C-alpha cells in the first residue's frame, strides 16, 4: 500500500498506515506505552501525559497518543528522560489522591496502582494538605468520588461519543476540576454503567458492587447476558455462588466492553428472595412445596396416564433456555409425548426471512457487520431501547467510518441524532417508504437491513425484493426480543417446523391455538409466561406443568411447578439476534433448582422415552450433527467466540404464521418476567426523569 510509513520504536522497525498514532504503532510492535486518558476508539485527549515518549529531532517529549507516525520517525519509549517524566506524573497524581487503596473497590485492578507499581517513586515529597471533595451519588447505580478521580475523561467520552447520551461533563477548574452530570446533581441516562467500568481508578463506583468484595475473592465466569437478543458476553464475578457484579472488562466476545444496564446490573433477579427453590404441587387447590422426587413422580404418573388414554398435550417453550434445552424439549414433545403442539413466544418473523433468502450465503449480518457495513437501514425498531449493542455498533460505525444510517420508524428514536435520513411510518407500513431512500442506498457499497416485529410476512418478502433491486450486497437482521428467541426458532420450538426449519408431517397447534383449545389434557410450559396480563387457557381442566424461576401468573395456574435455573446458572449455547451461537457457562448457584435439561432428562428416563442422554455436550453434539446450519466450530465456541449458524440452505415451504409474531415491547429498563424480578431495573424505572429521551 502506498500510504504506509515505517518508523522505528525502541529499535524495532514498524510499518503502519500513515496517520496511525505512535501509541498504536508501538502496540503493534509489542511495546506497551502506559496511558490513562488514551482509550482506543475514542477521541484523543493527551491530558494525562503518561504516554510521553522521546522522538529524535524533537526537543520536547511528545504524547504518543496524539502523535501520528511519520516515515523515518525514531521513537524511544523507555529512556531515562521518559521514565523520569512518568515518575513525576505518577508523583503528581498521588499528591491529591487519597491513597485509600485498602478500602477502594478498584484495589487490585486499578490502573493507577499498576502504574505506581511500575513507575512509582516509593516515597513522596508531598508534605501539604491534600485537596478534598466529598463523594456524590448520581443515581441508584453510580457514585463518584472526586478525590480519587484523575480526570482522564474516559467516562465523558464513552457516554457522549460511544452512546450519544452525553450525560457527563467537566466542572470547575484546576485542582478542583471534577466530573459532573450534565443535569447538575443526578444522571439522566441509560444507566449502563460503562463509565464505571472504564474508570481507571476507583472514582466511579457501582451502587451494586461498592464495598462488597475484593477483585481477587471472586471467580470470573464467562456468560451470555440473559436479557435481550443481542447476546452480549458478560463476565460474572461470582463469590460463594452469588453474582457480585457483571462486566466485560476483558473485552472478550462480540460486544467488547459494551454492556447495557441489563447486562451490567440486571442480574440481581437470580438472587431475588422470590426465587422458587422447591417444587410445588397443587394440593386441595393450593400449591404446596414438595420434594423433587415426589414432584417428578407426580408428573410422571399424570403424563403416563395421559399418554395411555391418548390425551392431548401442548408444550410451550422458552426464549431464555439454551439451544440444548430447546432441542431436547422439542424432542421430548415430538418423540416422547408424540405431539407437534409445540410453540414459543415469537417476537420476529425469522421464518419468512429464512425462506426469502433461501440458498444464499452471506445474507445474514453478524454483530460485527454492523460496525463494518457501508450503510445500515433500520425499520420499525427503537434500537437504542431494545437492541443496545446493535445501536452501539451502528453508532461506532458512523463515528469511525462515517457509514450512514437510515431510519424508518413509527416514532422518534435516538438514531435520529446522526441518521442520514429519518422517515416516520406507521408500524407495519415501514417498507412502503423505502422507495424514498432508493437513490441514497444504491450509492453505497453494501447495506445491512435491520427490521423489527412490525415487518412480517409479505412485508419481509417485499423488503428482500427491494434489497435485491438495489444491486449492492445486502445483509439482513430480523430483530427478535430475548436471549435465545432466535435459537428457539432454529431449534424447532414450532408446531410446523422441526429443528433447522424442517417441516413436520402433521403440524400441531401454534401458541394462539393452544391458548384457545378447550380440550387439552396437559399443558407443559417450560420457562414461559403465556398467562401474563390476565390471559387464560381455554382448557380449564388441563393439567399444567410449569418450569419457572418465579411464581408467575402461569406458575400460579400450574398443578406442578418445577423450580428451574436461569441462564446464568447453567452451561450451554445460545443464538443471538444475528444467528451467532455462543457458549455460556454456569456461574452462581441457587439451592433447590434444576436446569430444564436435567428436569426433562429425569422425566424422560422415568417415562422411558429414548431421546438421548440429557447432557449438554451430548445434546450439542447432536445439534451439530443434525440441525441444518448448526455445525458450528467447537474451538470457536470454546474460546468464547461467536459462530454464525448457516441456516439459509433451503426453502421453508410452510406458512410462516406471521400473526404469531408479537413484540414484547421491552425498553432499556424492562426485560419481560426477569425484569419484573430485578429490583434494580424496577428501581431505575421508578426514578423520575431517569429515562433518556431521544
Amino acid at each position, binding site marked *: 500500500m502506498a500510504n504506509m510509513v515505517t518508523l522505528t520504536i525502541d529499535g524495532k522497525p514498524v510499518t503502519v498506515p500513515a496517520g496511525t498514532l505512535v501509541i498504536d504503532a508501538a502496540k503493534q510492535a509489542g511495546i506497551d506505552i502506559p496511558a490513562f486518558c488514551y482509550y482506543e476508539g475514542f477521541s*484523543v*485527549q*493527551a*491530558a*494525562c*501525559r*503518561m504516554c*510521553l515518549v522521546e522522538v529524535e529531532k524533537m*526537543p*520536547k*517529549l511528545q504524547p504518543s497518543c*496524539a502523535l501520528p507516525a511519520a516515515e523515518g520517525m525514531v521513537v524511544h519509549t523507555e529512556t531515562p528522560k521518559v521514565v523520569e*517524566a512518568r515518575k*513525576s*506524573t505518577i*508523583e*503528581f*497524581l498521588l*499528591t*491529591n489522591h487519597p491513597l485509600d487503596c485498602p478500602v477502594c473497590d478498584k484495589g487490585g485492578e486499578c490502573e493507577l496502582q499498576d502504574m505506581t507499581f511500575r513507575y512509582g517513586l516509593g516515597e513522596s*515529597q*508531598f*508534605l*501539604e*494538605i491534600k*485537596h478534598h471533595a466529598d463523594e456524590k451519588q448520581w443515581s441508584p447505580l453510580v457514585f463518584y468520588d472526586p478525590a480519587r478521580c*484523575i*480526570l482522564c475523561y474516559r467516562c465523558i467520552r464513552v457516554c457522549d461519543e460511544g452512546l450519544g447520551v452525553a450525560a457527563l*461533563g*467537566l466542572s*470547575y*477548574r*484546576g*485542582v*478542583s*476540576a471534577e466530573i459532573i452530570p450534565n443535569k447538575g446533581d443526578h444522571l439522566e441516562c441509560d444507566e449502563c454503567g460503562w463509565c464505571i467500568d472504564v474508570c481507571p481508578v476507583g472514582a466511579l463506583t457501582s451502587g451494586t458492587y461498592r464495598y462488597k468484595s475484593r477483585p481477587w475473592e471472586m471467580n470470573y465466569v464467562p456468560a451470555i447476558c440473559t436479557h435481550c437478543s443481542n447476546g452480549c458476553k458478560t463476565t460474572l464475578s461470582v463469590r460463594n455462588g452469588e453474582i457480585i457484579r457483571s462486566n466485560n472488562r476483558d473485552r472478550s466476545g462480540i460486544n467488547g466492553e459494551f454492556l447495557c444496564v441489563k447486562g451490567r446490573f440486571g442480574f440481581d433477579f437470580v438472587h431475588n428472595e422470590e426465587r422458587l427453590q422447591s417444587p410445588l404441587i397443587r394440593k386441595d387447590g393450593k400449591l404446596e412445596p414438595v420434594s423433587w422426587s415426589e414432584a417428578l413422580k407426580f408428573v410422571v404418573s399424570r403424563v403416563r396416564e395421559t399418554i395411555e388414554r391418548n390425551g392431548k398435550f401442548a408444550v410451550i417453550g422458552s426464549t431464555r433456555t439454551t439451544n440444548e434445552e430447546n432441542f431436547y424439549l422439542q424432542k421430548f414433545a415430538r418423540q416422547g409425548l408424540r405431539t407437534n403442539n409445540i410453540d414459543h413466544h415469537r417476537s420476529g418473523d425469522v421464518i419468512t426471512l429464512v425462506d426469502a433468502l433461501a440458498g444464499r450465503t452471506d445474507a445474514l449480518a453478524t454483530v460485527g457487520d454492523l460496525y463494518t457495513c457501508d450503510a445500515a437501514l433500520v425499520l420499525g425498531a427503537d434500537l437504542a431501547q431494545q437492541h443496545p449493542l446493535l445501536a452501539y455498533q451502528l453508532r461506532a460505525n458512523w463515528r469511525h467510518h462515517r457509514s450512514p444510517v437510515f431510519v424508518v420508524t413509527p416514532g422518534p428514536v435516538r438514531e435520529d441524532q446522526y441518521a442520514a435520513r429519518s422517515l416516520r411510518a406507521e408500524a407495519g407500513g415501514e417498507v412502503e417508504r423505502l422507495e424514498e431512500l432508493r437513490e441514497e442506498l444504491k450509492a453505497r457499497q453494501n447495506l445491512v437491513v435491520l427490521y423489527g416485529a412490525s415487518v412480517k410476512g409479505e412485508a419481509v418478502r417485499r423488503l428482500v425484493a427491494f434489497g435485491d433491486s438495489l444491486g449492492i450486497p445486502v445483509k439482513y437482521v430480523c430483530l427478535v426480543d430475548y436471549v435465545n428467541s432466535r435459537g428457539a426458532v432454529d431449534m424447532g420450538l414450532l408446531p410446523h417446523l422441526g429443528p433447522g426449519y424442517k417441516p413436520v408431517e402433521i403440524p400441531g397447534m401454534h401458541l394462539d391455538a393452544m391458548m384457545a383449545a378447550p380440550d387439552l389434557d396437559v399443558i407443559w410450559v417450560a420457562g414461559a409466561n403465556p398467562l401474563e396480563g390476565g390471559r387464560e387457557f381455554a382448557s380449564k381442566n388441563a393439567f399444567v406443568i410449569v418450569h419457572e424461576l418465579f411464581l408467575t401468573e402461569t406458575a400460579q395456574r400450574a398443578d406442578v411447578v418445577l423450580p428451574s435455573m436461569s441462564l446464568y446458572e447453567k452451561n450451554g449455547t445460545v443464538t443471538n439476534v444475528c444467528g451467532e451461537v455462543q457458549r455460556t457457562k454456569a456461574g452462581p448457584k441457587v439451592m433447590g433448582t434444576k436446569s430444564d435439561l436435567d428436569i426433562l432428562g429425569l422425566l424422560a428416563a422415568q417415562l422411558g422415552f429414548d431421546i438421548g442422554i440429557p447432557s449438554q455436550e451430548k445434546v450439542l453434539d447432536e445439534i451439530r450433527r443434525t440441525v441444518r446450519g448448526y455445525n458450528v466450530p467447537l474451538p470457536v465456541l470454546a474460546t468464547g467466540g461467536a459462530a454464525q449458524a448457516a441456516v439459509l440452505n433451503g426453502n421453508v415451504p410452510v406458512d410462516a404464521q406471521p400473526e404469531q409474531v408479537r413484540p414484547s415491547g421491552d425498553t432499556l429498563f424492562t426485560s419481560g418476567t426477569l425484569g419484573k424480578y430485578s429490583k434494580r431495573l424496577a428501581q431505575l424505572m421508578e426514578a423520575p426523569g431517569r429515562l433518556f429521551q431521544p
Partner: protein
Amino acid sequence: MTLLAPPHPLEKRVLLRRFPEPRTEPVWIDEYLRTDGYEAIRKALAMEPEQIVDEVKKSALRGRGGAGFPTGMKWSFVDRKSPKPKYVVVNADEGEPGTCKDRILMGYDPHRLIEGVLIGGRAIGANRGWIYIRGEYREYIDILDRAIAEAYERGFLGSNVLGTGWEFHLSTHTGAGSYECGEETALLESLEGKRGNPRLKPPFPATSGAFQCPTIVNNVETFCAVPDIILNGGEWYAALGTPKNGGTRLVCLSGHIERPGVYEVPLGMNLLTILNEIGGGVWKGRKLKAVIPGGSSSPVLKAEECDIPADYDSLAKAGSMLGSGATVVLDETTDMAKVLARLMKFYAHESCGWCIPCREGTTWLKKITARLEEGIGSERDIDTIDRISQSMLGRTFCPLGDAAAMPAMAIARKFREEILEKLSRADAFAPVEGAQPLVVL
C-alpha cells in the same frame, strides 16, 4: 478610564500616535477619519491579499500577546482557497498579570483595532471576525461596541465594505474570566460556547480554528500595528526596531516605579533606560531588586541582569522573555518569597485542570510557596520547587504549565539565599518592615 500618560521624549509613538496630549475620551470615528483613519483599509482593499501578507512579513511584526510568533507567517498559513469560511479572532483577553496595554488601545483608539482586523480579514479572505474580550473590561466592551456600530454606519463594516462588495462582520464576544482563555485554542473553545480548555495542536487555528474553519488569532496590539504597516510599508515599520524584532511595542510599567503606565518604545531599547528614564526609576529612591520583564510568566531578572536590550531575542538569551511587555519592578524591600507565593496562587487558580502536570504541579507549588511565605519550610522545599517546575516544563498540554514553572524556577534559584535567610529568621512570621504591597499583582 485609565489616564494615558503624556509621552516621554524617549518614546516612539506609532500605535499611540493619536495621543500627543493626555486625554480621557476615546478617538471616535470623526476624529479617527481626520487623522488618516481607515486610509490603510482603503489601501489594502486595492492590494492583492498576498501583498498584504507580504507587507506584514516585511515589517517583522511579531505577535504581541506573549509568544512572539511572526504575524505575517501566521497569516500565510491560512489556505485562502479553502472552501470553508475563514475567521479573524482578536485576542483581547489580556490576562497576563501586569499587562494593561490592550485596554489602552481599545479604550482610546478602538477604530485602529477595527481597521487592523479588517486588513487581517482581507488578507486571509475572511468575512467574519470576533473580538474576544475579557468580561472584566466592561467599559472597553462598551467603547468597542460603539465603535463597531459607528464603523457599520459609515460602511467600514457590513455586507458591502466601502462599496467593494466584500462582506465583513465584526462583534465583541465577552469572556467569563479565565486566564486560560487567553491561550488561543482555549479562547476558540470559549468563543464556540464550550469550556475553555486548550485544544490539541496540530491542527493549528490557521487550518482548523473557530468552528473548525481556518482562523487567525492575534493580540489586540498586533492588529493595531497593522494599519500603520500598510500605510507606511513593512520596511518602515521594521526599521523602527532591531532586526527580526520589527517596530515599536507597548510597555506596561508597574510595581515599585515612580511613573507606572503604558509607554510605546522601539523594540531593542535598553531595559534600564526604560525603567530609569521613562519610568523615572525605582520609587522612593530605593534600589532595584528585580524585574519581571514580560508578564508574570517571564522568569525574573535580578537587578544586575537588567542591562540588556528589551527585544524578543535578547531577553530570550538572558533566560527570560519579552512576553506581553508587562514590566513589573520590584524594589529592595520586596519579600521574594511573597512574590513567589502570590504568583503560584495565581497559576493554581487559573490552571484549567485539563492535564495532570499543570493541575497538580501548580497546586503543589502554591501550597509549598504559601508555607514559605509564612516562613515555614526548609531548604528541601526550595529543591522541591525546582524539581516540580522541571517536571512541568515542556510536559504540559498547553503553555500554562510552563508559564507557572518558569517564574517559580527563576525565583527559587535566583533568590534561594534570601528565602533561606527568611526561613532561618526567628521572627520569620513578622512582616518585613517597610515592605510595600505590589501595585499590580
